[in-house]
C-alpha cells in the first residue's frame, strides 16, 4: 500500500515513575510487515515503552502513533487492530486454555480458529488445564495465542520467549517469521541477542530509557568495525615485521603464548598479509579466525557489564 502510515512511530517518548524517567526521550519506527526488536537489560524501559504503545500506560511527553492513531485515548477501533502479548499473566487464574483463547477470539471480527491455534502452539494437551496450573512456558504460549488470534496488523510481544525451552523458542521464531511474511508488523522486546539478531529487521538497543544504538543486525555488529583476526602459531615470534607489513591502524599482539591477535579493519588484504608473513617465517598459521563482533559484544559494550537488578 503506498502512503500507508508507519505501523508505529514514537518521537521523544518520556515516561516518569515518581520523578525518575523510566523512558527518557525514546524514538522508534516500525514499518508495516517488518520486525523491530527492542533490546535492552532489565529495567531499560522496554516494557514501559510497549505499554504506552498498547494504550495501557500514559506518557509524560512525546508523540506516539500506532497505525496512525494516538494510543493514549486507546480508541476501541485501534485496539481492534493490534495484538498484545504481555510479559506474564493475562488470564483468569481458573480459566482453561481453550476458553481463554475463545474469549479473546470472540472480541475479534474474523479471528483465527482457536482450536487450530491451540493445537499449533502445542497446547492441545493442556487445552482443558486451568491457567494457574500451566507451566510458565505454557502460559507464555497461551499469551502468544491470545496476541495473534484476532488477526491484527501489529503485534506487540513482550519477551515472548523468556521462559521457553529451545523447541518453544523455535516455534515462536517460526511464528514471528510467518507473521512478518504475511504482512504483520511485530514489535518484540527481548534481552536475548540471538533472538534479536535472528528475527529483527531493525534492532534498537535501549538502556536507561534511551536509545543507545540502532540499526540492522548487520549494521550493529559491523559498526565501529574494529574486528579482529586471531591465529595460532609458534610462540614468541617477532611481530615488528608483521606490524610494518599491515595497513595502518592494524595492531598485532600475542595475548597468550602462541596465540596472536590482529586488531583493526580486517579485510582480505590483511588476511593474505598475515598468511604470507607466516609462510615466510616458515610457520603454519593455525586456527585462523576472523571474529565478527557478536551482537552480545555490542550490547555489553553499550550497556555495561555490571549486573542489573
Amino acid at each position, binding site marked *: 500500500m503506498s502512503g500507508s502510515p508507519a505501523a508505529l512511530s514514537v518521537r521523544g517518548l518520556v515516561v516518569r515513575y515518581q520523578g525518575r524517567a523510566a523512558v527518557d526521550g525514546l524514538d522508534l519506527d516500525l514499518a508495516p510487515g517488518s520486525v523491530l526488536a527492542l533490546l535492552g537489560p532489565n529495567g531499560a524501559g522496554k516494557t514501559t515503552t510497549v505499554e504506552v504503545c*498498547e*494504550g*495501557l500506560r500514559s506518557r509524560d511527553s512525546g508523540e506516539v502513533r500506532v497505525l496512525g492513531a494516538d494510543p493514549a485515548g*486507546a480508541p*476501541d*477501533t485501534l*485496539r*481492534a*487492530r*493490534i495484538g*498484545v502479548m*504481555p510479559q*506474564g*499473566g*493475562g*488470564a*483468569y*487464574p*481458573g*480459566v482453561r486454555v481453550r*476458553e481463554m483463547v*475463545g*474469549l*479473546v*477470539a*470472540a*472480541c*475479534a*471480527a*474474523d*479471528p*483465527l480458529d482457536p482450536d487450530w491455534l491451540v493445537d*499449533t502452539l502445542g497446547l492441545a494437551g493442556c487445552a482443558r488445564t486451568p*491457567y*494457574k496450573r500451566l507451566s510458565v512456558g505454557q502460559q507464555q504460549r497461551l499469551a502468544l495465542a*491470545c496476541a*495473534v488470534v*484476532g*488477526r*491484527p*496488523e501489529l503485534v506487540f510481544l513482550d519477551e515472548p520467549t523468556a521462559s521457553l525451552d529451545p523447541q518453544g523458542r523455535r*516455534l515462536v*521464531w*517460526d*511464528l514471528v*517469521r*510467518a*507473521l512478518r*511474511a*504475511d*504482512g*504483520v508488523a511485530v514489535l518484540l522486546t527481548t534481552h536475548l541477542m540471538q533472538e534479536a539478531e535472528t528475527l529483527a529487521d531493525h534492532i534498537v538497543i535501549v538502556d536507561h530509557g534511551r536509545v543507545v544504538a540502532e540499526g540492522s543486525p548487520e549494521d550493529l555488529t559491523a559498526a565501529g568495525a574494529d574486528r579482529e583476526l586471531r591465529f595460532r602459531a609458534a610462540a614468541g615470534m617477532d611481530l615488528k615485521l608483521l606490524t610494518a607489513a599491515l595497513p595502518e591502524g592494524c595492531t598485532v599482539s600475542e595475548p597468550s603464548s602462541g596465540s596472536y591477535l590482529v586488531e583493526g579493519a580486517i579485510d582480505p588484504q590483511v588476511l593474505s598479509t598475515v598468511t604470507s608473513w607466516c609462510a615466510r617465517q616458515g610457520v603454519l598459521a593455525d586456527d585462523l579466525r576472523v571474529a565478527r563482533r557478536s551482537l552480545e559484544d555490542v550490547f555489553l559494550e553499550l550497556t555495561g557489564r555490571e549486573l542489573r537488578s
Partner: protein
Amino acid sequence: MSAARFEAGTFTPAPGRGPLGRMLATQVALETKLALRQGEQVLLTLIIPLALLVGLSLLEFVPLPEPRVDAALATVLALAVMSTAFTSQAISLGFDRRYGVLRRLAATAVPRSMIVLGRLGGMAAVVLVQVVVLGAVALALGWRPGLGSPGWALLLVVLGTAAFGAVGVLLGGSLRAELVLAVANIVWFVLLFAGGVLVPASALPGPLAVVVQLLPSGALAEGLRTALLGGTPALGHIVVLIVWAVVAGGIATRTVRWT
C-alpha cells in the same frame, strides 16, 4: 522452516471488533462458569446457604417466625447475595488483577465499559442460579411463594446485589489479592453473625440493632424477611441499599486499579 509450520497467508491481517453482543455473552458465560467451577466459591455461594436453608427450616432450636421455611429462605437469600456479590466478587477481582486478566481484556477490542458489564453480568448470573436453586429447595421444604411478596423480594435481591457488588468491587479493586482474600472472608463472617443476616436485628443488643440496619447485610436480610413473610419492606432498608450501591460504586469508579 516456518513455511512448514504456518501456511503462507495464515496471519494475513483481518482486524476488526467482534459483535458486542457476542463479546458480552462470551465473557458473562465464562465468568459464570469460572465462579460455579471453583470449589471454595461454590461452598460460599451455594453449599453453605443450602445447608443453612435446610437446617434453619427443620431444626427448631433457632428461633424463627412461622412459617419457618419462609424466614429461612429470606435469611439464606441475603447470605447468598452477600457471598456472591461481595465476598466472591472481591476475591476473584483481587486475583484477576494479580493475574493481569483485566489488562489482557483492556488490550483487546472490548470497550472497557463492556468488561465491567461482563463482570457484573457474570455476578448477576450466579445470583440468578442461587435464587433458582434456593427457591427450588425451599419449595421442596414447603415454601409457598404466594404468602409473601416475591416482587419486593426480587427488588431487594437486585438492590442488595448492587450494594454488595459495589463494596466488593471497591475492596477487590484496591488491595493486594491476599489481603482481599482475608478481609472479604472476615467481613463475610462478621456480617453473617453480627450484621443482621443470621441473627435478626431485633435479637441483637440495643445499639447494634440500629447499626446493622444501616449495613447492606442488615437492610437486605430484614427487608427480605419482611417481604417473604407477607409484608412490605421498610423504605429505610431500600434506601440503605441504594445509598451503599451509589456511594461505594462512586468511590470504586475512582479508586479501582486494573492491575
